Structures are given as structure tokens and as C-alpha cells.
């Protein structure tokens, strides 16, 4: 299972998808991953940063949507205070 988590003032919103079902062209899974990809791109355009977070490995910043990622966390645009 993959998960996209988008941080916001409401806490994090989540979209999950099943990679195996996506590969099997399951319509719901395909719709979920397409929605996740759309949100990823939109957030990046707005200045957000995306991180790939996986158990047992270091956090990695990513610039492109990774369908195989266990978890992607999107942090909104940050500014120096």
C-alpha cells in the first residue's frame, strides 16, 4: 500500500492506493493514485516539499511522484520567521 499525506491546518489528509491493484488496472485504485499524483503536482507548484518516508530507511526529499513509495509526506511551503 502507498500513502500520500498532505499536511494542512486540518491535520494531515491522506490518500492511499494499492500498487498491485493499480497494476491490475483496478478502477478505484487507479483513480486514487491519479488523485494522489494530481495533488502531489499541485502542491509542488505551490512551493510545498515532498518527502519519501519508509520504515528502516532515511527520509528522502523527492521532486517526482513515486508510485512505489510506502509513504509520501507533503510539507507546505515554508518561510523564514
Amino acid at each position, binding site marked *: 500500500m502507498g500513502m500520500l499525506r498532505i499536511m494542512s*491546518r486540518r491535520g494531515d489528509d491522506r490518500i492511499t492506493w494499492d500498487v498491485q491493484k493499480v497494476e491490475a488496472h483496478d478502477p478505484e485504485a487507479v483513480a486514487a493514485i491519479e488523485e494522489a499524483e494530481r495533488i502531489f503536482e499541485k502542491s509542488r507548484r505551490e512551493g510545498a516539499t515532498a518527502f519519501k518516508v519508509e520504515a528502516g530507511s532515511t527520509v528522502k526529499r523527492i521532486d517526482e511522484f513515486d508510485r512505489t513509495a510506502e509513504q509520501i509526506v507533503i510539507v507546505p511551503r515554508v518561510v523564514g520567521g
Partner: protein
Amino acid sequence: MAMLETLSLFLGIWLLFLLLAIYYLSQSPDGSVGRFRESVSGHLSAESRAKALLREMLTESQYQQLIKFGYLEIPSPSIDNRVYRVPGSGGLVKVYERGCAVMELCLQPAEPLPDGDVVVMHKLMIEGNEQEYLQKANHFAPGIISLRCQHP
């Protein structure tokens, strides 16, 4: 004595009206109390989701450190002996090298986030994007500013 009874009666009637008004407003989605209730419940929901994310992103010892001391220490992935001390409830991030404070950093999300999410934000940025984190943050000499960062 009669005066006291009259006063108590007025007070009782006034309280009854007050309670009825509060009940009426809280039942109406357009009422200000209804909106207030929604806002409070939204805030609590955001905080509980942020807390859940925090628990997932931190190890048990990191979470205990945050609960016990009110901050989370994150070792620098690229600079030896450097530690970032991220406060749990907002404020400047203190940077220590070999145990000595060397600077304080102020970096905040452009949109307000629950406190738990802000801690996760610092952790992800330090661990996954330290150079950009340092580039974007405002740097201060240690101890100069101790006020919490305010959102614009």
C-alpha cells in the same frame, strides 16, 4: 427578605433564558455557538491527527523525549556533532555543536499547522533536506530571541 426572594426569582429566570439561548444557538448550524462548536471540534480533530502523525514519525525514545522535555533533538545528517533542538509547541529551533548553543533558527510553514505537524515538518526537512532548511531559515545568535515565532 421579600427583596431577596424577588432577586433570586429574577436571577433564576435570567439564567433559564441564558441556558435556553445557548441551547438554541448550539442547535442551529448558522448560530454563532454552532460555528464555535464546529471550530473547536475541527481544532481538536486537527490536533489529534497531528499527534497521530507525530507518533508514527518519531521513534519511541524521540516521542518520550518530546513529552518529557518538550523538545525533540535531531542529529544533523551532514554536520558532525551538530544537533537541532526542535521545540514541541512552537518557537525557535536551537542548534548545538558539541553541546554548545551556536545559533537559533526560525522557520515556519506559510499556512498554520497544528503543533505536532510543525515538529514533523522540522524533522523531515532537517533529515531530508538540511541544506535548504538552513537556507530558508532565519538565523539568530543563541539567546537573542526567545519569543515564539508568529505567523504572518
